[in-house]
């Protein structure tokens, strides 16, 4: 639908005299608060305790302590801005005379003096004295004067001099500070010239215990003249002098003469959660912002957090570092059936739950997980999280980015409506899924199958390609030790009696499996296979006496070595082996590293450890804390509630798993033990100590009282303190904030940021340079380019510029075109973009402009990793909306996708496909194109030269150039589209050999049934099996005894296998008969002719007849024949495979006119996977033919810009010669404005003319 302009704006578009305007604004892509901040300087020394003043001239004045610098010096630095607050300028530096290390610097406070100078008060401690000083500087940072106001001797009690100062009126100033001797009291001093100060006087604030600590006073003068005194107050002390603190304020309505009783605005109740340093800024008469610091030893969350479902037994943590996200797998861990509670996605920088999945969500885990899950089996990577059922042969992989869950099943589970979809059958029922591991880079789900069945133990390792489209999946077997290679007790270390680990390291070519058991009489092992399945190392005590007898429980792979936890074994000469075993794989060396923080035999390192940085290995030691072993320094450190106050709720030390967040340099700990009173996620830093976060409360005046909002994060980091703020002098809805941040080097930096960061670039657009916006139907991002002046300020690398962030890459840019009508400018949105490039260069003598290039949000989508979607069977608009919501976080209100013409249901799942490509595939199928509209909404429009006319140009008054252009066209006059039906039909493929059988048969008899599966995994179906005899054993004996039988004796009715039976007769009886004949013959003497058989009379002559020997030979012959009845057989089984295929369908569209004109048919063929019928094919063919024809009628025109026109519109205009009406579908629109002499405001349009 064409744009609807404001009527006045629309009227102005048709006038001869135009007054075009353009507005370009820059803003953060996300909300300004919480701030991320940028450093004020690049100094390597500490900068802290900032004080900020918004001066009446428009300047910001900043003061802060610094040092020790490289010379050991320190003091106060003053920085100011120009009156437009464009850049920071260095003012006076107050360098203190002694080495900075000898000072304890206090706070700084500033106020504007009558006449415009700046009054500064500050405090510091040195050599047993606290000093209170004042200084006067000019608004441009020039020192005027300085002097000591007072000093206080340190007599053993705390004296706190941190001052705060405020202007009461003309030549009237008041400071307030705190001193504690016996009591901790507020004192004030007043001055009429900031040079001489009255003696101190106590300030009485009711409602507080005098002796209790008050700190960090901060004065605010409201617009109604009231003074507010903010401070943090110690309500009670703990047994170890821990302080329970909250934020309070007191009000004076008489310029500080009297003060109200203190009012408490926070309600912290734990010693371990400390708030301090309140500073308030008044934006309007009805609104203030209170900022303060919250300090904790660690932060935590559990299922009380918004978005976290019930159940917080955190058993696995998977880090997705590039996205700053942790995935927590929570599995019920108490007595009874284990089940999946949920998987939770936590954004670490904002400490919020982004998403969560359980058996009730959509997508969700199969209901089987509600009653069956095991807790230490699965290792995810990045956003791919595997979760295995207990004994059901199922593993589900959550893709936390794509928001999909894919179920892989080895077994049918009808009770849970699960159908086996992995083309692999366990060798026997003893097997089950033992552990899984995600190889993220290669997108593989590795699965360890184990059979601990006593008489048939085994290990099988294989993987499923996560890019494989369902609905069935291949299990690629790499290791198959299905031959009783292990004993049942050895394998117990991988099962429920153990803590074994399974990891795959493709870069090292290692598959590592460890077995470690808590049963003292069970030995363990550590196996390393190569990725081609060869056993590379098999560490067992029996082969390596230095290898821990009970094996390896959890291990880390670091520096080419394996570092594994062990269970103590006092026997076998291993009584001195305790702790972590370092395994040098190359040299087969085993070195034990025993923790130093406590003397145990077995350290509870059975749960999930992780690697930190620089050789740190982080081991949850339940009962002790978090142990960190540094492999470089070989040192142990234990972190627990003893040295990190409030590390865990209830100070429990029941740690189940750990992970390291390298960007935030934080350790994450999962608490999930049965015995724990509190389960959930904990995060703390061992590098920076306590976590410090700046929070804020908005305060609104209701007409009778100030109402405080809940506390919220002001800054994204975890090491931020001492925030001060000032309202933007030109915008009371926004404020500048400065604070200190502890850097990884250990020093503090001053960080700043600004709320209300929308910046109008329009005044900086260079006259005579074009502002150009390109929009197209070609499935490419819209673009915007423009040039701005003040390159030195917009330079992203200029730390002293307040505008250095305005054109940073990724900054959001909004464009509006407009028209001045009378005294009012009427605007029309021109789109939202993101800075992709800001080009500038400094050259002496040349002014530096910035050439800015921007593209709409699709440029960011294009850089997303390819995604895997869920399996869709829905209409195209529904799929598009789902993908936009799931993948690029668009909200419903920002999606305006109409119902497609000729829509059909799309049945598809996209695997590892870029988002843009998915969107384009869907849109192309139905003849639409996708766009982000000028108002920023996701939208689709139909591509057709027959669309209704959106805008009529009834004359040629706006047309400047008319140029037919068919250079992109060809001669195609027929388009043929093929697709596939959605349903499958069964077909027979050519007969093929499916199996070869060979063996040996012999006289001892033989019978064997060979089960011939038509494929290894038993899934393939074949018919008409045929036995081809290549070689068969033949012998006289067999022939005499009934031959060898060789046949297909059984065919599986489901066509998955057949049975070949080979049977040979048993000739043992014949052999015995032969032996008997032989023996008989041996007893028969020779005969002589003419003499009675068997007796030779003496002297009688005749021919000897060896009757016995003949009989013997017959017997021998018979035996030889039997014993010779041994031979090989060799068969082949051939069969005709069955398969399911989808039938191809096809349709075509013809440009008969062009075919007749050209006298030939020129075809263009292609396939469309979303065409399921010939009608679908025809629709696509007709669309493609329409484009082919339209390209031959392409037209370029240049006209005066008209803000109604967009790409995808159809306009009607006149032919410049014939004045005939022309209907043009706009494919590309380039709108350019060049203000100034020789300038213009034009639309350059490319499009297709309706035939």
């Amino acid at each position, binding site marked *: 639908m064409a744009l609807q302009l404001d009527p006045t704006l629309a009227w102005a578009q048709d006038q*001869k*005299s135009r*007054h075009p305007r353009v507005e370009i604004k820059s803003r953060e892509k996300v909300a300004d608060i919480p701030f991320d901040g940028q450093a004020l300087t690049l100094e390597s020394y500490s900068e802290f305790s900032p004080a900020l003043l918004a001066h009446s001239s428009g300047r910001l004045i900043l003061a802060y302590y610094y040092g020790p610098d490289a010379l050991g010096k320190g003091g106060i630095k003053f920085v100011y801005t120009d009156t437009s607050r464009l850049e920071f300028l260095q003012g006076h530096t107050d360098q203190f005379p002694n080495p900075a290390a000898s000072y304890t610097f206090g706070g700084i406070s500033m106020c504007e003096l009558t006449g415009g100078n700046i009054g500064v008060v500050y405090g510091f401690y040195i050599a047993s004295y606290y000093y209170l000083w004042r200084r006067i500087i000019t608004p441009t940072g020039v020192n005027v004067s300085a002097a000591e106001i007072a000093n206080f001797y340190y007599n053993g009690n705390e004296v706190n001099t941190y001052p705060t100062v405020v202007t009461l009126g003309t030549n009237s100033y008041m400071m307030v500070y705190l001193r504690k001797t016996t009591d901790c009291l507020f004192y004030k001093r007043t001055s009429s010239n900031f040079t001489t100060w009255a003696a101190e006087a106590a300030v009485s604030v009711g409602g507080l215990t005098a002796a209790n600590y008050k700190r960090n006073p901060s004065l605010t003068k409201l617009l109604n003249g009231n003074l507010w005194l903010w401070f943090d107050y110690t309500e009670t002390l703990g047994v170890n002098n821990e302080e329970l603190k909250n934020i309070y304020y007191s009000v004076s309505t008489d310029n500080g003469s009297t003060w109200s009783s203190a009012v408490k605005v926070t309600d912290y109740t734990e010693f371990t959660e400390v708030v301090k340093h309140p500073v308030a800024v008044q934006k309007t008469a009805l609104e203030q912002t209170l900022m303060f610091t919250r300090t904790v030893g660690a932060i935590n969350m559990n299922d009380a957090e918004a978005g976290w479902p019930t159940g917080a037994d955190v058993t696995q943590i998977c880090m997705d570092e590039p996205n700053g996200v942790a995935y927590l797998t929570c599995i019920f861990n108490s007595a009874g059936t284990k089940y999946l509670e949920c998987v939770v996605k936590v954004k670490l920088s904002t400490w919020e739950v982004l998403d969560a999945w359980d058996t009730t969500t959509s997508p969700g885990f199969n209901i089987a997980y509600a009653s069956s899950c095991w807790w230490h089996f699965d290792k995810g990577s990045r956003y791919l999280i595997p979760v295995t059922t207990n004994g059901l042969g199922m593993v589900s992989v959550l893709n936390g980015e794509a928001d999909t869950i894919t179920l892989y099943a080895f077994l049918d589970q009808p009770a849970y409506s699960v159908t086996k979809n992995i083309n692999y059958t366990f060798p026997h029922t003893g097997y089950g899924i033992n552990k899984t591991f995600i190889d993220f880079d290669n997108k593989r789900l590795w699965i360890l199958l184990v059979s601990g069945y006593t008489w048939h133990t085994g290990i099988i390792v294989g993987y499923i390609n996560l890019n494989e489209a369902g609905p069935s999946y291949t299990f690629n077997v790499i290791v198959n030790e299905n031959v009783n290679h292990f004993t049942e007790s050895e394998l117990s270390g991988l099962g429920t009696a153990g803590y074994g680990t399974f990891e795959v390291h493709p870069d090292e070519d290692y598959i590592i499996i460890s077995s470690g058991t808590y049963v003292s009489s069970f030995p363990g092992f550590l196996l390393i296979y190569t990725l081609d399945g060869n056993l590379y190392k098999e560490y067992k005590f029996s082969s390596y006496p230095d290898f821990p007898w009970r094996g390896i429980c959890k291990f880390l792979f670091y520096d080419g070595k394996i570092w594994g936890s062990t269970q103590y074994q006092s026997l076998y000469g291993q009584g001195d082996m305790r702790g972590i075993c370092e395994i040098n794989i190359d040299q087969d060396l085993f070195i034990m590293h025993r923790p130093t923080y406590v003397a145990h035999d077995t350290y509870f390192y059975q749960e999930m450890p992780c690697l930190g940085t620089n050789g740190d290995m982080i081991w949850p030691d339940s009962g002790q804390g978090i142990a960190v072993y540094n492999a470089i320094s070989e040192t142990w450190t234990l972190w627990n509630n003893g040295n990190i106050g409030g590390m865990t709720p209830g100070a429990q030390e029941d740690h189940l798993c750990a992970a390291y967040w390298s960007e935030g340099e934080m350790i994450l700990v999962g608490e999930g033990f049965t015995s724990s009173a509190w389960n959930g996620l904990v995060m703390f830093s061992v590098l920076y100590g306590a976590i410090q976060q700046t929070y804020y409360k908005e305060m609104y005046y209701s007409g009778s009282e100030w109402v405080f909002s809940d506390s919220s994060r002001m800054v994204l980091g975890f090491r931020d303190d001492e925030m001060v703020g000032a309202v933007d002098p030109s915008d009371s809805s926004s404020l500048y904030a400065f604070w200190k941040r502890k850097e990884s080097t250990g020093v503090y930096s001053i960080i700043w940021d600004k709320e209300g960061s929308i910046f109008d670039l329009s005044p900086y657009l260079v006259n005579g340079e074009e502002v150009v916006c390109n929009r197209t139907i070609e499935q490419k991002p819209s673009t915007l380019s423009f040039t701005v002046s003040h390159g030195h300020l917009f330079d992203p690398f200029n730390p002293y510029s307040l505008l250095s962030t305005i054109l940073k890459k990724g900054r959001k840019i909004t464009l509006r075109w407009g028209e001045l009508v009378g005294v009012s400018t009427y605007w029309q949105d021109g789109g939202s973009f993101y800075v992709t490039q800001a080009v500038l260069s400094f050259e002496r003598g040349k002014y530096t402009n910035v050439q800015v290039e921007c593209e709409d949000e699709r440029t960011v989508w294009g850089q997303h990793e390819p995604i895997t979607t869920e399996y869709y069977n829905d209409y195209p608009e529904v799929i598009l909306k789902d993908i936009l919501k799931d993948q690029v976080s668009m909200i419903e209100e920002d999606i305006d996708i109409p119902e497609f013409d000729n829509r059909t249901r799309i049945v598809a799942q996209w695997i590892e496909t870029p988002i843009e490509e998915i969107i384009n595939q869907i849109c192309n199928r139905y003849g639409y194109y996708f766009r982000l509209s000028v108002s920023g909404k996701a939208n689709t429009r139909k591509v057709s030269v027959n669309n209704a006319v959106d805008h009529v140009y009834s004359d040629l*008054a706006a047309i400047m150039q008319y140029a037919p252009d068919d250079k992109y066209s060809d001669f195609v006059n027929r388009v043929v589209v093929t697709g596939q039906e959605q349903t499958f039909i069964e077909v027979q493929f050519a007969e093929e050999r499916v199996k070869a059988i060979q063996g040996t048969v012999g006289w001892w008899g033989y019978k064997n049934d060979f089960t011939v599966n038509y494929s290894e995994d038993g899934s393939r179906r074949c018919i008409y099996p045929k036995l081809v005899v290549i070689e068969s054993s033949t012998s006289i004996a067999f022939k005499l005894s009934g031959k060898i039988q060789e046949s297909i004796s059984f065919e599986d009715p489901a066509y998955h296998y057949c049975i070949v039976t080979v049977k040979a007769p048993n000739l043992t009886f014949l052999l015995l008969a032969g032996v008997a004949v032989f023996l008989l013959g041996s007893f028969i003497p020779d005969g002589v002719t003419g003499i009675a058989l068997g007796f030779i009379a003496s002297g009688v002559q005749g021919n000897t007849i060896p009757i016995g020997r003949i009989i013997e030979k017959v017997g021998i012959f018979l035996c030889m024949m039997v014993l010779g009845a041994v031979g090989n057989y060799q068969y082949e089984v051939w069969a005709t495979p069955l398969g399911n295929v989808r039938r191809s369908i096809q349709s075509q569209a013809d440009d008969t006119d062009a075919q007749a004109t050209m006298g030939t048919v020129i075809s263009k063929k292609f396939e469309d996977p979303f065409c399921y019928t010939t009608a679908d094919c025809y629709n696509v063919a007709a669309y493609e033919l329409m484009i082919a024809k339209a390209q031959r009628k392409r037209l370029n025109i240049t*006209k005066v810009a008209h803000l109604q026109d967009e790409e995808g519109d159809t306009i009607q205009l006149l032919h410049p010669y014939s004045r005939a009406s022309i209907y043009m579908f706009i494919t590309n629109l380039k709108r350019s404005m060049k*203000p100034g002499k020789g*300038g213009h*405001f034009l639309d350059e349009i490319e499009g297709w003319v309706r035939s």
Partner: protein
Amino acid sequence: MPNMILGGLTFNRNPTKMTMIIPDKHCAYEKTYSSVAFFSWGTSIVGKELELEWTNMRSSDFDSLDTMFRADAEVNFNPQAGTGKTYTVNIVSLDGAYQRILGSAVGVWRSDVKMILLVMAEV
């Protein structure tokens, strides 16, 4: 008419020739097939160059101008044009020639002095 003032300098002599202090109009036009399109982005004095020329100038004035020129900072300009308006300007260029006449010291006069001011803002 009083002499014009630039920064802290009140000129001994007003310029012999000077650009009118009126805004520039930022406009353009394009001819179409049957008409013309006129585009205007309005008028503005900001960014206008003012050329001031003196046939002769005292060297003390010139030296003051030169000092301001070298200071390289924005200065206030009161043209004393009767409008009451003053402007913040930058001195873009300053040039002239030594005027050496018989009996005159080198440092007394400058001739053909030309200065260009860029209007940064109307005060």
